[in-house]
């Protein structure tokens, strides 16, 4: 059943993506940027998906601490790992865009810089998990870290934005400035496609995590004999 749901979502996502790619490719070039503007249809949804993921991770972490059910821990790690991948997409597409438009691979603009800090934060979550062997302790400590990380995210965004207003940027095209109407529709549909992909990848990772727990359990049982 779960398999069928996953395949269904994957198919829907693939169809949407194909359709979107076609629509995006026939959009007229943007006046200032040329071809590269199309990257925004992946750059922005990837960020939104990652941020949603971090909120889901927070809820899952709190639920684990309260209910002690490992399904929440598995959900937290799955959603965080996939989120890190999407955040990386955001960072890479942002960097490519910056190279084309501004001529530099990294311009320290506030949003990308904040995204980078958040990426490092959640990478720390995974490194912490790697360092802890015992599953209950790993899940508990990871949950605590996830809560700290989530509390930090808004503070990171605000502080880096203020930091960058001290050093004014060259005037550039605002990424969420006036959006032509035909862009909004494409953006929203691509957001849906990306969310579907996110969900599918999370489910796959979730299943892998459950399997890993079972292997762990069997190994301990054998050792106890």
């Amino acid at each position, binding site marked *: 059943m779960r398999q069928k749901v996953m395949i269904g979502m994957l198919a829907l996502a693939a169809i949407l993506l194909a359709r979107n790619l076609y629509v995006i490719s026939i959009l007229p070039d943007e006046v200032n940027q040329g071809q590269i503007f199309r990257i925004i249809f992946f750059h922005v949804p990837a960020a939104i998906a990652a941020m949603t993921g971090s909120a889901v991770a927070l809820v899952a972490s709190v639920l684990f601490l309260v209910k002690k059910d490992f399904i929440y821990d598995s959900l937290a790690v799955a959603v965080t790992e996939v989120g890190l991948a999407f955040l990386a997409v955001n960072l890479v597409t942002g960097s490519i865009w910056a190279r084309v438009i501004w001529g530099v691979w990294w311009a320290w603009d506030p949003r990308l810089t904040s995204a980078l*800090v958040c990426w490092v934060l959640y990478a*720390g979550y995974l490194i912490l998990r790697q360092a802890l062997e015992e599953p209950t302790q790993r899940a508990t400590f990871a949950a*605590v870290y996830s*809560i700290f990380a989530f509390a930090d995210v808004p503070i990171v965004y*605000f502080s880096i934005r203020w930091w960058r207003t001290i050093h004014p940027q060259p005037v550039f095209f605002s990424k969420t400035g006036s959006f032509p109407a035909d862009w909004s529709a494409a953006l929203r549909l691509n957001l849906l496609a990306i969310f579907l992909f996110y969900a599918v990848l999370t489910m796959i990772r979730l299943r892998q995590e459950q399997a890993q727990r079972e292997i762990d359990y069997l190994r301990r049982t054998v050792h106890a004999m």
Partner: protein
Amino acid sequence: MRFLRQVMVITAKDLRAEMRTKEAINASIAFAIVILLILSFAFDPTEDTTREISGGLLWIVFTFAGTLVLNRSFARELPNDCLDGLLAAPVPGSVLFLGKALSNFVLILAIEAVALPVFGIFYNVRWTRQFWPLLLVQALGTWGFTAVGTVFSALTVNIRLREVMLPLLVYPLMIPMLLGAMLLTAQLVMGQPITGDSVVWLRLLFGFDIIFTALALVLMETVLRG
């Protein structure tokens, strides 16, 4: 209040033990001076442009040297299973957090009290012109660092590679606070007062301290007792 009394017992214990051996404090102060020295080679202290940003460099010194103190905070409870003695006592996790955080706070402030004059000498900066605002920024920034660092000291105490994991987990969390502290310290050390523009950073430090102290007080019990 019993809570505060118990906190003071823990703080006094940590400080007394540290003063007996002086292990962490000596190493940390020496480390701070070494880093200051190295930074002086990396960023020429005789150039005016360097002196302007030098206050920011100070926080690199404080965080690196302070990590030694934070690491030691719960590591000192490992020999003889002393942590068990504390956990068996009728004190909640929040008391253990606050007691140790206060002791770490004092020790890290001591490191800063040594590092600042040395910095003033190396960089030829009269850093006392905005003394009280500078003290305020030091206190707020150091508390934020200490609060987060103490929780993670407890969390990493039994982990492999504890000495690496502690900074690895704590520094990213602290980036917003470091940003504010570095900017304010750089200004204040050069004698510029806190203006309307930079007050926002002061508010950031306050907010950071409050949020993370609250989180630490609530979550310490979970970290210690699962």
